[in-house]
Structure formats: structure tokens, C-alpha cells
């Protein structure tokens, strides 16, 4: 059997946040799949400062099951959300291919894990797996806006896990060391991306977007799309129309009998001045926020400790 196993080294990075109840079951599944298919693999769980004893649940799992390969737990100092946490795991992973599991629950067909790997081998650096139908209205809205304004050739959608090649990881890091939004960075990497879908009739994937808070959504829209630029442009255009209208109105008043001394020139100056100010401000604000995001986020995440739990050395 060993001879039939895949020769590539596989890493699995799992985001764990208050998942004490289901992490054991998930690890059982994951170890099963990887052990059956890969000669060499590792599992890294990023514990995003869970308060429900998820860390202890993982240690208990290792004590009781003694899997063939070790488990690495990255304990984050404070809760930092899924994106930063997954970056922490990704930076530690050494595999040729890295599975990113956004939550420790396999409520999709288990075959999807290996199917994504086989798909990657056919020439795709990024394989993303998600339900056929995006469940939540807010998510749909976000992806709708994102895909509308994204410069990437690929459409993003809700996904439950993805497989990324080492080459893709190098590529996105070469472009930008801080991955504010991994999915978008992969899609914009210029490497081939493939989406796999499974049927999710009950909409079980609904709760999975918990890490994508509003500010992350806004950051991502600003960094990976030109939505922000377009919004500021629309605002400027509205102000342009308004000031143009007030300009015409001033001229009409000037020639009419209701002409008031001094008022017209003041109004002309005000309309023109404010137009320019609003235009410049919107642009400046956008670029400032971008610069802050890119330059000042040097310390990417805070790690408290890294534990390596030994499996059965045999």
C-alpha cells in the first residue's frame, strides 16, 4: 500500500476557535484521509485563543489516538481572527501542497479532500472547494460586489477549504508579504485557480464565514478591488453635479432682479472650492488607508507558543 501513496508532502492548516466539541472528530477524519493517501504529511492547528479548552481537547486526542505523525498547535496570544491565524499556520507549514481548513468540521463529502488534490495535480495551483450555492445574503452581497470590481479573472465565492501549492504561496508572498485576505490574494496571483462545488442542500456551510468581519470585508474590497475608488468617484461626480447646479443657479440669480451684491461671487468660489476639496479628499483617504494597511502591519500576528505533539514514533 505504501508504494501507492502520494509522494508530495501535504500540510493541513486548521483554524480552531472554540471547537473543543468537534476538533477530535475532525482530526480523526483528517488523519485518516492523509494517512491513507500521503506518505508524508503534517497537521497544524492554529488555536485562535479559544476559551473552551480546544487546546486540551487536541492534546487529549493525541494522547488517546497516537496517530503516526505529529500534530503542531500554534497558540495565538490573543484572538486575531481567521485571516491572521491562518497566515500564522501557513507560515509554519512546510508542505508542497497546503490544505487550508477554515473550520474543523467535515460536513461535506470527505472525497472532496483528495479530489481537490487530484485536481491540483492536473495543473491548478489553487483549488477551492465550496457549496454550489452561497448560503447567506450578506456573503452573496459581499462576493457580488467583490467580483464585480475585482481585477482578477476568477470569481470568488463561499468556500469551506482550499488547496494551495507551494508555488502559489511563494508567488503571493513575492507580491505582498501580508495576506490581508488569502482567497483574494490567491485569485490575484496570476496562477491557475479551479473551483470545485458540492451540493449543500441544508445550507450547512452558512455559519462558516464567521471570521470575515465587516472591516475585513471593507479592507479586502479596498485592497483587492477598485470598489472604493469607484465609490469615491461617484461621490465626486454627485458633488460635481451639485456644484454645477449651484453655479448655474447663481448665474441665473445674477441676471435676475433678485440679484444680491457679493453673494454670487462667494457662492461661485464656494461651489468650485468644495468640489475640488471633496475630490482630492476622497482620493487621499483611500490611498492613505491603503498605505497604512500595507506598511504598518509588519507584526503580522502574535504567537504565544508552538507545541509539537509527538505521534507514535514506531
Amino acid at each position, binding site marked *: 500500500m505504501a508504494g501507492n501513496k502520494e509522494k508530495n*508532502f501535504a500540510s493541513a492548516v486548521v483554524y480552531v476557535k472554540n471547537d473543543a466539541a468537534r476538533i477530535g472528530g475532525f482530526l480523526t477524519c483528517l488523519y485518516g484521509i492523509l494517512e491513507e493517501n500521503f*506518505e*508524508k504529511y*503534517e497537521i497544524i492547528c492554529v488555536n485562535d485563543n479559544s476559551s473552551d479548552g480546544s487546546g486540551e481537547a487536541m492534546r487529549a486526542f493525541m494522547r488517546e489516538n497516537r496517530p503516526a505523525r505529529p500534530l503542531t498547535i500554534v497558540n495565538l496570544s490573543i484572538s486575531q481572527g481567521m485571516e491572521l491565524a491562518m497566515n*500564522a499556520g501557513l*507560515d*509554519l507549514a*512546510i*508542505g*508542497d501542497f497546503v490544505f487550508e481548513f477554515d473550520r474543523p468540521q467535515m460536513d461535506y463529502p470527505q472525497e472532496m479532500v483528495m479530489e481537490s488534490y487530484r485536481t491540483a495535480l492536473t495543473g491548478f495551483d489553487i483549488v477551492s472547494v465550496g457549496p454550489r450555492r452561497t448560503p447567506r445574503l450578506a456573503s452573496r452581497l459581499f462576493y457580488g460586489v467583490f467580483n464585480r470590481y475585482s481585477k482578477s479573472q476568477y470569481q470568488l465565492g463561499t468556500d469551506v477549504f482550499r488547496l494551495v501549492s*507551494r508555488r502559489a504561496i*511563494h*508567488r503571493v*508572498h*513575492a507580491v505582498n*508579504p501580508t495576506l490581508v485576505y488569502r482567497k483574494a490574494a490567491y485569485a490575484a496571483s496570476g496562477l491557475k485557480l479551479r473551483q470545485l462545488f458540492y451540493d449543500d442542500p441544508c445550507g450547512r456551510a452558512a455559519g462558516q464565514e464567521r471570521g470575515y468581519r465587516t472591516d475585513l470585508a471593507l479592507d479586502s474590497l479596498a485592497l483587492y478591488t477598485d470598489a472604493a475608488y469607484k465609490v469615491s468617484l461617484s461621490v465626486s461626480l454627485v458633488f460635481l453635479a451639485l456644484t454645477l447646479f449651484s453655479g448655474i443657479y447663481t448665474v441665473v440669480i445674477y441676471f435676475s432682479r433678485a440679484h444680491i451684491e457679493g453673494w454670487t461671487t462667494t457662492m461661485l468660489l464656494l461651489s468650485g472650492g468644495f468640489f475640488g476639496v471633496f475630490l482630492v479628499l476622497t482620493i487621499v483617504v483611500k490611498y492613505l488607508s491603503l498605505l497604512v494597511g500595507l506598511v504598518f502591519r509588519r507584526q*503580522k500576528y502574535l*504567537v504565544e507558543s*508552538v507545541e*509539537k505533539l*509527538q505521534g507514535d*514514533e*514506531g
Partner: protein
Amino acid sequence: MSWDKIIIGAGLYGLYCARFCGLRGERVLVLEADSGAFCRATYINQARVHMGYHYPRSYSTAVKSAGYFRRFLDDYGFCVHTSFDQVYATSAAYSWTNAAEFRRFCAAAGIRCDDVPPSRYFNPGLCDGAFLTEEYTYDAQVLKEYFLKELAALPNVRVQYGAPVTAIEQKATHFELTAGGARYESGFVVNAAYAGVNTILQMLGYEPFGIKYELCEIILCTVSERLRDVGITVMDGPFFSIMPFGKTGLHSLTSVTFTPHSTSYEATPHFACQQKEGALCRGGLLGNCDDCPHKPRSAWDYMSQLARKYLREEYGFAYQRSLFSMKPILKASEIDDSRPTVIRTFSKAPTFVSVLSGKINTVYDMEEVLADGGE
């Protein structure tokens, strides 16, 4: 039969002491458990002649290493491989140090540190700094031949192989040792048994060193042309090092996370493998892990994968073989990463001295205590 000095362990520290005392005309006996010298830690390690780069969190260790570095080169230059580029790099993620910090540290310690572009050696984004440094590697086999030849010329020095110390008793004027079935006496005993140091101390009821034990693996590799004259160390955290292994033409590959296979936190080493059928550890005495049938499965898969993640493809390397040894680590040195050489005198007249060191070039620290006690 009584000796002026008895030294436990024929590693570098043991043989250095034997030669030092032998040249002073003392009658010296070295007791070694294995069938040859330099079979454990002196041979099975990264073979660094430390200049101090390795200790960016412990300035004192760094300065001391740098001081002894020159002297070691003068004395034992014949066993030192110097003609390669030793590159230290700081990892962008998970490192306890960074490029700016490392530069500052080297400047303070007064050691060479020239910036080279990280992209020359590493994949994009993985290292934020890379530095050409002055650090070398020694060849334990060449050094061993030298010491054995030197000692052979001293008729007053004897090295007894296959003689693990199984009992020691303190008498009024001397210590009585049982090793390999024979009894030996001396008024001055030097315990240089490294990983076995606490086992010896326990026999005398002395307070053990506060150490933990790691069963370590070093992998010897054949390397591609591009890597032949390059040594690379990524620091300071869960990273790796691949550098020339003395003058053997091979490189040693180690990693902070995968080199230690298992750890024992007790005063003397306790591992599950010791209980297995045919294990070399017997009666509390540590066997040679490298010869043991129960040495762990190699971590080559992990170490090589980690190194390949960082290194550009042209720096290729392939598995040759693994070496295993037991490494004691002072618990107090975990936080600041210092690796002090600890020499402790437990008793005077009769004198009992223990040494614990993870570095070869601090061997000179022994002279003071040997000269003192000998007066």
C-alpha cells in the same frame, strides 16, 4: 591502582583534560563506555566552531565564543574547514530576532556580518535578512586522530575503552571507581560524561545539573554543486541549518523542531525506547543511541521539506545517513538561548569536578580548574 586523575568520558573535553594533565607529567586514566573515542556528542553534532552568531539572545555567550574562536583555530586549525560561505539568515516569520536586530547584535559583539540579498539563497518572502559571516566547521575524526596520537606519546596517560563507570564511592582521601569490572582510585575525578553526567553525580549523591534530555538526529547529506561551499543557518526559531560537516565533503542537516525526537525532563535520561528488547541502555547507564537498534525513524521527510521550503531549488541535497545522539540541555538556558559551559566542583581533596558544555571551543575553560586542583 591509584591515578593522579581519572577522567570519565573520552569526548573532546575528556581527552583535552587528559592531554593537559598528561603534559604536566600526571598519571591520567580516561574511562570510556564505548569502544572508541569521540563516538557520541563530540562527533554527532553540527560541528560548528562557534563564533557566537548562534546566540543572538545571549550576548555573554556570544562574546565568550568569539574570544575562544581564534585560539581554537590557532591550536586545531588542521581539523577546521574554513573555505566555505557561512550564511546566517533571519526568518521573516516565527523568528525571535530580525535582520536589524541581528546586525546590531553582531556589531555589539564585534563579529563579521555582511549583508547579502536573501533572494540569492531563499524563496521569496521567507527571510528578511541574510548575512555572510565568519564561522567554521571542525572534523571530529581528524581531531580524534590528533588527540589519540598525542596521548599515545604520553606513557603516563591511558585510555580504557569499553569501561562504563558503574559505581563510585567517596573515601577519605580518594574516590573509588568501578568500571568494566575493574576498580580504580584517584584523588581527582573529572566527570565529562556529557549526557551521562547526572548518572555519575547520582552515584555519589551529589545534586544533579538542571537539565533535560533530547534524543537528537543529525542527517548527513550529499549536496549539489551550488551548495557545496555554502553553509546556511536560518534563525532564530523553528528553522533549520545545513552546513559542511567537517572535512567529510558531506553537509549536516538539522532543524530545531525535527532534530529532537523525544524529550526527558527527569534528572537522568528516561525514554520509552530504553525498555525495549535489545536496547543499549542498561541499569541506568546510557548506551550509544547511534548504535542502538531502537533509534527512531528518521525525520528526513520533515527536515528536508522544511529546508526545501526556504532554499531555492538550485541548492539541492540528498539523504546519505542519519546520526543519533543524546543531548543534555540546561533548563535555565531556554529563555535566553545561552549555552553556557558549566564547570562545577562538588568536592575538594578528594576533588570531584563535573563539566557540561555544548560547544567545543570553550574547552579551554577546563584549564583553570585542572591547574588549581593539581597544585
